[in-house]
C-alpha cells in the first residue's frame, strides 16, 4: 500500500494549515467593545453549561472536519496497491542434470533432497530433470507443474535411498548393456543441453549439473566439447559437486565448465549451498533479462473518499445546526 501522490497531499496539507493560520478569527481590535466585570456573566452556572455545550459541539465539529480533510487528503494522495510483475520468470528454464553413476550413488539421494528444496524456492521457472550414467534419460521434461516435479523428485529420492527397491530406479535404465563405460559426463551434459525445448524462443536456460566428474569409459563428447556446445546454446551450467576436502582436478574441470558458460561451481557440503544457488541463478537471470518487469497499480480510493463523502455530509449538517 503506497501513496502515489503523497507530495500533493503534503502540499495541500501545508496550504490548508497556512489558510487556517491566516484566516483564523482575529483577536480583539480597536473596534472591539471593551466591557468590564465580565465575571457577572462568566460565573453564571448556565453560562458555564452553555460554554461546555459549545465546546463539545466545536470539538465534534473540528473532529468531523479533520476526519473529512484527512480522508480527502488520503484520497487525493492516491492510495494504491503496486504490484511488480516479473514475466521473465516464465521465460526461465532450469534443467536439473544428475549423474547417477556408481560413484555418485551415495550422494544422489541427498542431491535429490537438495533439488526438492531448490524447486520450492523457484517461482514461475520451468524445471526439467535429466539423469545420466552411460546414457541419459529424461526423468521429466521442462514443466512448471511443481506438484508433479515434487512427486518425481520424491520418488527418485526414494529409489536412491532404497537402492532401487522402492520408488523409481534410474540406475538400471541409464546403463544399458550395449553401451560401454559409465559416467560419461560429456555425453550427459550434451543430452541435458539437448533436452531444452522451444529452441526458437529467446529464453534463459541454465543447468544444475550435479556430478563428481569421475569419467570411466569413452564418451562421444569429452567435457570440453560438451562445454562448447553449452556455450553455443547459451546455456549456463551451475555445477554442483559432492563435498571434497581438497580441490581435485575433477572439481577444477567442473569449475572451468561453469566459468566458461557463465555459471558457478558449488560444493554440496555447506548448508547454505541451496540458498546460494537459488540467489545466484535468480540474480544472474535478472541480470540477463533486464527491464522486462512492469508494475501494475491498483488504485484503492474507495475507503478514504467514502469517508470524505460522509464527512462532508456531516460537516454540512453541523454547519446548518450551528447556524440555526
Amino acid at each position, binding site marked *: 500500500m503506497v501513496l502515489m501522490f503523497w507530495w500533493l497531499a503534503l502540499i495541500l496539507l501545508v496550504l490548508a494549515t497556512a489558510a487556517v493560520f491566516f484566516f483564523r*478569527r482575529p*483577536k*480583539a*481590535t480597536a*473596534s*472591539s*467593545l*471593551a*466591557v*468590564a*466585570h*465580565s465575571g*457577572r*456573566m*462568566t460565573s*453564571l*452556572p*448556565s*453560562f458555564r*453549561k*452553555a*460554554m461546555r455545550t*459549545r465546546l463539545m459541539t466545536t470539538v465534534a465539529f473540528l473532529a468531523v472536519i479533520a476526519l473529512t480533510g484527512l480522508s480527502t487528503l488520503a484520497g487525493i494522495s492516491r492510495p494504491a496497491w503496486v504490484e511488480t510483475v516479473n514475466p521473465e520468470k516464465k521465460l526461465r528454464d532450469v534443467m536439473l542434470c544428475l549423474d547417477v553413476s556408481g560413484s555418485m550413488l551415495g550422494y544422489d539421494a541427498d542431491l535429490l533432497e537438495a533439488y526438492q528444496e531448490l524447486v520450492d524456492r523457484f517461482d514461475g521457472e520451468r524445471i526439467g530433470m535429466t539423469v545420466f550414467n552411460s546414457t541419459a534419460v529424461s526423468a521429466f521434461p521442462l514443466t512448471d507443474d511443481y506438484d508433479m516435479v515434487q512427486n518425481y523428485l520424491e520418488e527418485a529420492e526414494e529409489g536412491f535411498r532404497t537402492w532401487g527397491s522402492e520408488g523409481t530406479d534410474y540406475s538400471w535404465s541409464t546403463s544399458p548393456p550395449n553401451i560401454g563405460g559409465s559416467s560419461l559426463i560429456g555425453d550427459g551434459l550434451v543430452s541435458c543441453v539437448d533436452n531444452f525445448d522451444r529452441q526458437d524462443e529467446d529464453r534463459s536456460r541454465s543447468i544444475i549439473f550435479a556430478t563428481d566428474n569421475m569419467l570411466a569409459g569413452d564418451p562421444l563428447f569429452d567435457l570440453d566439447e560438451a562445454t562448447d556446445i553449452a556455450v553455443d546454446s547459451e546455456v549456463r551450467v551451475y555445477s554442483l559437486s559432492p563435498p571434497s576436502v581438497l580441490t581435485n582436478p575433477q572439481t577444477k574441470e567442473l569449475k572451468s565448465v561453469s566459468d566458461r558458460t557463465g555459471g558457478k561451481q558449488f560444493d554440496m557440503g555447506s548448508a547454505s549451498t541451496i540458498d546460494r544457488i537459488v540467489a545466484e541463478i535468480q540474480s544472474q537471470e535478472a541480470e540477463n533479462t533486464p527491464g522486462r518487469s512492469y508494475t501494475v497499480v491498483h488504485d484503492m480510493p474507495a475507503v478514504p473518499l467514502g469517508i470524505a463523502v460522509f464527512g462532508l455530509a456531516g460537516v454540512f449538517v453541523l454547519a446548518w445546526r450551528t447556524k440555526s
Partner: protein
Amino acid sequence: MTALLNRIKARMTIHAHRRTRRLLDGDYSSVFHGHSLDFDDLRDYIPGDEIRDIDWKATARHSNPLVKRYVAHRRHILALVVDSSRNFDAVTSAGVDKRQLAILMAGMTGYLAVRHGDDVMLIHGSAQRTTASPRKGSEAHLENLLQQILAEAGTDRDGSIDEQLQWIASHINHRMLVVVISDQAPLGAKEEATIKRLRAQHEILWITITDADLAQLPATSAPFDVSRPDVGLPTSVMANPNVRNEFLAAEASRKQHRIDLLSKLGISHTEIAHPDQALGNLHTLLLRHRRGPR
C-alpha cells in the same frame, strides 16, 4: 487647558435651560444640612433651597424671598471619589465610554461646588494605588482634576472603590461632601463596613455608572473584558436565552442589593448610563439626598 470643563459647562448650559441650572445650584447648596449660627448674609432664594432657611422677616420687606447664609457653609469641601482603573476603559450599558461619563459626572458636581465657592478635591485610583489631590476652589483646579481622571486611561490596574474609601477613612479628619463615582462592581461586606464608617463622618452621594448588558451585546461588536484583552467574549453563548435570563435575574438581584445596602446606610444613589441622563439624574440625586431620611 480647560477643554474638559468647558465641554461640561456647555452641556450644562445647552441641555438644561437656565432654570434647571439654577435649580441644580439650589439642589447643591441644600445638600449641606449642618447649620451653624454664624449668620453671614442674605441672598435671593433659589428653588431648591431649604424652606427653613428662608428669612421670612427679610422676605416680607422685599419683593423676592431671601435665604440666610451661614459662614460655616461657605467653604465646604467636595471630595470626588472616582474609580479610575481599567474597568472604566469600558462601555456603559448605553454603549458610551465609562471614563468620559465619570469625568462628566465629576465635572458637573465639581462645577456646582466651584460656583458655590467650595473647594474640590479628587481621590481616585485603582486597587493598588490611590491618588489624592489638594483642595482648591478654582475652575482651573477642577479641570486639572478631570484631566487626572482622563490620564489614567489605558492603565492596566484593576479597580476597587473600597481602596479609595479606605484612604478617606484613614486620611481625612474633617467633614466633607463625598461624591462616589463607581461602577457595578459588587458591594460586599467589606465595602459595606467602609461605607458605614465614612457615613458617620461625611455626607455621601453615590453615582453608579452601569456596566454593559452582557446578554445583549451584538455579535459584531467582538466584545472582550478589559482585564483579559486577548480573549474575546462569546456573544453567541451570552445571547443564549437560558444564560440571558439567568444573567438578567442575577443583575436585577445585584442591583436590588446595592440599592438596599445604600438606602439602609442612608446614602442617596443614582444610576447613570448615558451623558443625556447626567443633568436629570444629578438633580434627582441631590433632591433625593435633601429629602432622604436622616
